[in-house]
Structure formats: structure tokens, C-alpha cells
């Protein structure tokens, strides 16, 4: 039995943790949250220079070829630090989509730039509030041009390239679009978590190219989402763990009724439940990592379980962290709200738990997977 990360990857995790503690304290997150900058450009440049952006991209396309287990380890630390950079959009979504569905030419054109951090990518699915049903999308792809609106697009205001999901002539299709084209209009939108920027993008007949075979968009999107779900889950586990630690630390130092509030069972039991949810999410994420790294047939089920478990754990940890902090937790000054915002943001980033639970049960129905 060897169901854990290798010593090398644990060492990488330790390095990442140290680096982010120093370079990405909550003041950095707040700077993006409160200021005009859409992301922390200096941090992004350093992360890219250390090779994190290229961690799972093969060496032939300019990556570090560290594999997806390495990326999982980094994701956990980025989630723990709430790193205000377009890492998830560019790497979990765009780079994965191009790796999964792209032609050799597309991979050569974009993966090296994404690996080096020189270009930022994203995936554009949603078209306003409500379920983004790929068969009912209003954005169309016809004769090499893309038309329609996408809202919200994570990092859509800063990205250089987007993979847009659209209606093609033969059904749903993934379209790769260069966002610098004049027929692309974009504006930042306000969201619950301004430490991660989002945009409203309008395509007015923008030149685009198909990513993957026509009519195969739905299947490809699912594959990309399954892969991204595992990586997001690690970010969420990192955020849940950090929220739990904040609550624990505060419960030890805050006194009420003559004793630390952490000595009251009402607080102890609450935090024990958060711990249990976080450990379950971690174990589900580990299984997702195993399936992702091997490209195993179990990936859709493992990814759905990791996603549902991580959504639950991070939001629980973040909301109870505020609760344990009492009134102070509701102030702008304390960091609790940064985690609360991010928890809800990430739980919607790839579709809600409602959708992923349905996907999970569909897997059990069809695959007859062993429990």
C-alpha cells in the first residue's frame, strides 16, 4: 500500500508552503481584494519562474513534466494561501483543455506560453445565472467565428486565450479563441470574491478555432471538468484546513466565561465535525489524484466524489470559522471572510454540488463501479 505522496512531493509541498507564507500573506490577498489590480502580478511572475505553472505540462511543451501529483500538492498550498493569481483558470482549465483536446499545433502554440506564465488562459462556460446546459448554450461557433456572451468568465479580464464552449453546427464544441481580437469585448464583473477576478465577455464574430472534433464538445468538456475538479478539490482542502486552524487558534486564545472558548463542547464538537469533513475531503481528493495521475477509468467517479466532498468541507470550515470568531469574524479586519468568499466561489467554479452529485450517481448507475 502506497497511497500517499512521495517524499519528494512532500518536500515540494513544504517549500511551497514556506514560500507562500512569506510571499502571499493575507495582506497580499487583501491588496487584490480591495485594490484596482486584477491579480498579484509579482507573485504570478515568481510562481511561474519557479515552474509551478508548468508543473504538469510535459517537457516537450515547455513544462516541468512533474506530473499531476505535483500539481495537486501545489494546488493545496495555493488554496491554503488564497493565492490571488489566475492559476486555476490558466492551468487546471485552459492548459488541461488544450492538453486533452488540442491538436499538435494548438499544443505547440499555447502550452509553452501557459507553462511559462507568459500567457494566461481560461475556460468560458457559463452564460449568466442558471445551469450552463451545454446543449442549450446561446453562444455559437460558425465558420470559424464565435458569437455570444459568457458570464462570468474567471480571469476573463486578464486572460490571453479562452476555451469557449459553444453550439457548433454539429452540436456542442470547444472553441479556442484569442482574446486580443478586436471582436472580443470584455469587462470585469463584481463577484463575492474580488481577490479572484471575473469578466463578462461578448464575442461579436471573433475568429476562433475548434479544439477537438466537432460535435465532441460535451464529452471533452466533461473530461476537462473531471480533471479540474480534482485540482480544485486540493485547493479547497487547503482552504478548509487553514480555516480549521484559524478557528482552532482563536478558540485557544479567546476567553469567555473565565475560560478559553475552545474548552466548551459546543465549540469542540463543532470543530471536530469540521475536522472530519476535511479529512474525508482530503481522502477523496487523494483518490482523485490517483485517478487523475493514471488517467484511470475511475476518474469521473473519483472526481465527482472529490468535488462533492471538497465543496462541503471548505464551505463548512469557512462558515464555522466565522462562527467561532463571533462578532470579530464578521469584521472586514479579520481574515475569516476571505476564506468564506473563496469557499463559495470555488464551490461554484465548476458547477454546484447539486450537479456533481447527480454526475456521481450517474456514474454509479452506468459504470456499476465497485463501492
Amino acid at each position, binding site marked *: *500500500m*502506497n*497511497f*500517499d*505522496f*512521495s517524499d519528494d512531493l512532500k518536500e515540494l509541498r513544504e517549500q511551497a508552503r514556506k514560500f507562500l507564507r512569506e510571499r502571499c500573506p493575507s495582506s497580499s490577498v487583501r491588496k487584490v481584494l480591495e485594490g484596482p489590480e486584477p491579480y498579484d502580478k509579482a507573485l504570478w511572475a515568481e510562481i511561474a519562474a519557479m515552474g509551478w505553472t508548468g508543473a504538469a505540462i510535459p517537457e516537450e511543451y515547455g513544462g516541468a513534466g512533474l506530473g499531476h*501529483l505535483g500539481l495537486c500538492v501545489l494546488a493545496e498550498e495555493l488554496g491554503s494561501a488564497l493565492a490571488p493569481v489566475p492559476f486555476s483558470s490558466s492551468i487546471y482549465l485552459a492548459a488541461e483543455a488544450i492538453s486533452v483536446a488540442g491538436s499538435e499545433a494548438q499544443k505547440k502554440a499555447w502550452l509553452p506560453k501557459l507553462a511559462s506564465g507568459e500567457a494566461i488562459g481560461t475556460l468560458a462556460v457559463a452564460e449568466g445565472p442558471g445551469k450552463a446546459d451545454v446543449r442549450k448554450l446561446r453562444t455559437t461557433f460558425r465558420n470559424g467565428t464565435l458569437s455570444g456572451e459568457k458570464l462570468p468568465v474567471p480571469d476573463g479580464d486578464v486572460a490571453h486565450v479562452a476555451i469557449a464552449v459553444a453550439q457548433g453546427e454539429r452540436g456542442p464544441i470547444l472553441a479556442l479563441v484569442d482574446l486580443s481580437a478586436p471582436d472580443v469585448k470584455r469587462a470585469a464583473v463584481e463577484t463575492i470574491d474580488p481577490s479572484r477576478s471575473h469578466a463578462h465577455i461578448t464575442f461579436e464574430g471573433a475568429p476562433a478555432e475548434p479544439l477537438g472534433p466537432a460535435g465532441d464538445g460535451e464529452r471533452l468538456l466533461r473530461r476537462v471538468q473531471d480533471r479540474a475538479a480534482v485540482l480544485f478539490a486540493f485547493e479547497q482542502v487547503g482552504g478548509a484546513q487553514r480555516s*480549521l486552524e484559524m478557528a*482552532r487558534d482563536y*478558540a*485557544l486564545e479567546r476567553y469567555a466565561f473565565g*475560560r*478559553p472558548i*475552545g*474548552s466548551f*463542547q459546543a*465549540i*469542540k*464538537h463543532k*470543530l*471536530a*465535525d469540521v*475536522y*472530519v469533513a476535511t*479529512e*474525508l*475531503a*482530503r*481522502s*477523496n481528493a*487523494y*483518490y482523485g*489524484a*490517483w485517478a487523475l*495521475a493514471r488517467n484511470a477509468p475511475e476518474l469521473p467517479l473519483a472526481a*465527482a*466524489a472529490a468535488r*462533492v*466532498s471538497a465543496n*462541503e468541507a471548505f464551505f463548512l470550515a469557512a462558515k464555522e470559522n466565522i462562527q467561532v470568531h463571533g462578532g470579530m469574524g464578521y469584521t472586514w479586519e479579520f481574515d475569516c471572510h476571505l476564506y468564506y468568499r473563496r469557499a463559495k466561489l470555488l464551490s461554484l467554479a465548476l458547477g454546484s454540488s*447539486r450537479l*456533481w*452529485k*447527480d454526475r*456521481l*450517481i450517474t456514474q*454509479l*448507475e452506468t459504470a456499476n463501479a465497485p*463501492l
Partner: protein
Amino acid sequence: MDFDDTPEEAEFRKGARAFLDKTARRREPGEAGVYRGGLEKPEVRAAAKAFQAKKAEAGYAAITWAKEWGGRGGSAIEQVIYNQEESKYAIPRGMFDIGLGMCIPTLCTWGTQAQRDRFAKPALRGEEVWCQLFSEPAAGSDLAGLRTRAEKDGDDWIVNGQKIWTSGAHYCDWGVLVTRTDFSAPKHKGLTYFFLDMKSPGIEIKPIRQISGASHFNEVFFENVRIPDSQRLGAVGEGWKVSLTTLMNERYTIGGRTGTLVDVDDVLELARKVELEDGPALKNEAVRDKLADWFVMSQGLKYSHFRTMTALSRGQTPGPESSIGKLVTGPKLQAMAAFAMDLMEQGGVITDPELAPMAALFQQTLMTSPSSRIAGGSDEIMRNIIAERVLGLPADVRVDKDVPFNKLPTGKR
């Protein structure tokens, strides 16, 4: 990252399988292997003893024990591997776990060499069965509140009082017992620990009828029961310390057993069969939502267990993730049973296995699941343990810690 055995582990597993194939029958698909199931029947106990003798002979009865105690001197991962393999066979399980998991390790830690020589091997071979006499009607989660009295009389002690929740007391040969020997000392300081012959005069055993209708536990009454002082483990007044040896082993014994009566796949199977107003229950969104929650818990526990095994396989101490199983499983069992019965609407009340779906599995589980949230550390105690030992939160304020035991309030007056 993989789920494979190391070459040494694979070799060990092969050996364990060969032994089991030779000695036992593989369970049929769907054949339940209920922990401690059927032990009320003498023929099941006889079969359990016969298997245990062969298991000891082959060196699998106490894999992690030191060789000087009659063990194999093996590793924790080997014990886990053996348990995994054994659980696939139709073997009456659970009869010796309390003795070998808790009583004998305590005796070997605190007793004399002569006592180890006398008791360890017969227990390993299943010739002598042990029980644990700890809990009392007024001392459950608060074990140190126990009041069974032991008084010195020459070279003997005379015991009076009552124990409860003793599994298998009526067929056990020996027991470990915690008593109070000093009522004027604070509660943790007046205890003394013994082992005794369960056939001693003055012991009366009465089965307790559980809410499920079954009787797996007993009340044990002591009336002037004599125990030689040579059967005392640890010093007089040090019984709490000795008890902790037993209790630390309890967590391993209980946490180590795998397989529950019902899991999410059973509810899934039911949901395939049941028709709701809008079609099969499995197509109903509320049903899918619940099933997904339980699946995620089951999978999370499964892979937490694999993380624990990985630590053991690497010769490391498992992390705190190994402590969550009981707290997740108990409430989940109860919730699944109740929800499955909801799917049957009014017919869900029927317990006749001929009439109720899946031979009344869920109705039975509804009635047995409360005990999984209480036995071996209640949900509340498990949360305290996680909060204190894993998260490092302060222990409860103890108003009774330094007060003489006979000055403590014992109820509403």
C-alpha cells in the same frame, strides 16, 4: 501513489490466503458476515474456538505481539492484511477480540512472567475466553466514576457491586475488572485493577435485552466475590493507569474491525427497485442527493483507511485520520436505515423478512444502529477525543477531579 502491496506484504498475503483457503470457506456474494453474530449459540462458539486453535497454530492469532508472549512479532500492516483476508471468509468473528485486543495485552504489560506464561497462550488458542468488566450503570463515558467496591481481607480482596455491558460474560472464563478500593480519594486515585475467574462464587450474570430484542451484553453482579491479591495488576490505587492500557487497545480493536451491516450500495440497490410517484427512486433528485452524500462518506473513509495502511506499511505511526471512522459510520448507518424505510412509505414499518424488502435489512439496522453511536466511545466522546488529541483544544473543566469520591454529588437531591 498506488494501492499495491510491497513484495513482502504480497508474500504475507499469499500465506494468509493459503491458510484461510485450507481452514475456512469463502463467503458467498451477499452473504453477510455480522461481527459477533451468532455467538449466543454454543455451536457457533465451538466453531469459533476450533478455528482460533488453527489460527494460533499457523501463527496468525496475534500477529503484532512479541514472540515472548506467543505472538508472531509481525507488523501492524501484516495484521491489517490478515484482517482484510479473513473478512472474506465465513468465520464467526469477534469472540476473542476483547481478550486478545485488550485483556491479555494489559495482563502482559502489568502482570508477572508467570502470569504471561500461564494465560497468554490459552487465550491465543481460544481455550480461554476473556471479558472486560469496566462499565457500570452509573459509570459509562465517565468510567472513573465507577463504584464497585473491593476490600482487603487477608491475602484476598472481597468484591461487591455491579458491572454492565459485558459482552459474552456468560461464556467467558476470565475477566479483567476495575474496582474502587478507596472511596475517600479523588475518583481517579482510588481505583484498583484485577483479573478474575468468571466461575468464582458470588458472580451472577443476567443478559440485558437490547432495543433490537437481541441480548449481546450482560449485567454482572458481584456478591462477596473473593479475588486473590496475586491477581491484582498494578499497585493499589493505580487502577486508572492500568485501565488506560486496556482502553488504548480498545480503540485499536474496535476501529480495526471492518465491514458494517449496511452501506450505501444497499440503499442504492433499494432505490433501483422502489417506484416513487415519478418513476424509480434512483431517478429522484432528493434520493440521489442523499446517496451521493453517503457515498462520499464511505469512499472518504475507505481512502482514509488506505492512508492509515500506507503509514503502517512504511513503519510510521498513522496520522489522526484514523480516528474519524467510528464517528462517521454510526450516524450514517442510522440515517441510511431511516431514509431507506422512508422510501417504503407506510410499508417501511414491516419487519417480517418475508415481506420487507431486502429481508428487512434496513428495519434491523434502524434498531441496531443506535448502539454504534454509543458503544466503544459515544459520538460525543469521539468528538471530545478529536478536539483534544487531534486539534489540541483544552480538556473539559473537571469539577470532580480533586474532590474525595464519597463527597461527589451522585444525582439530583
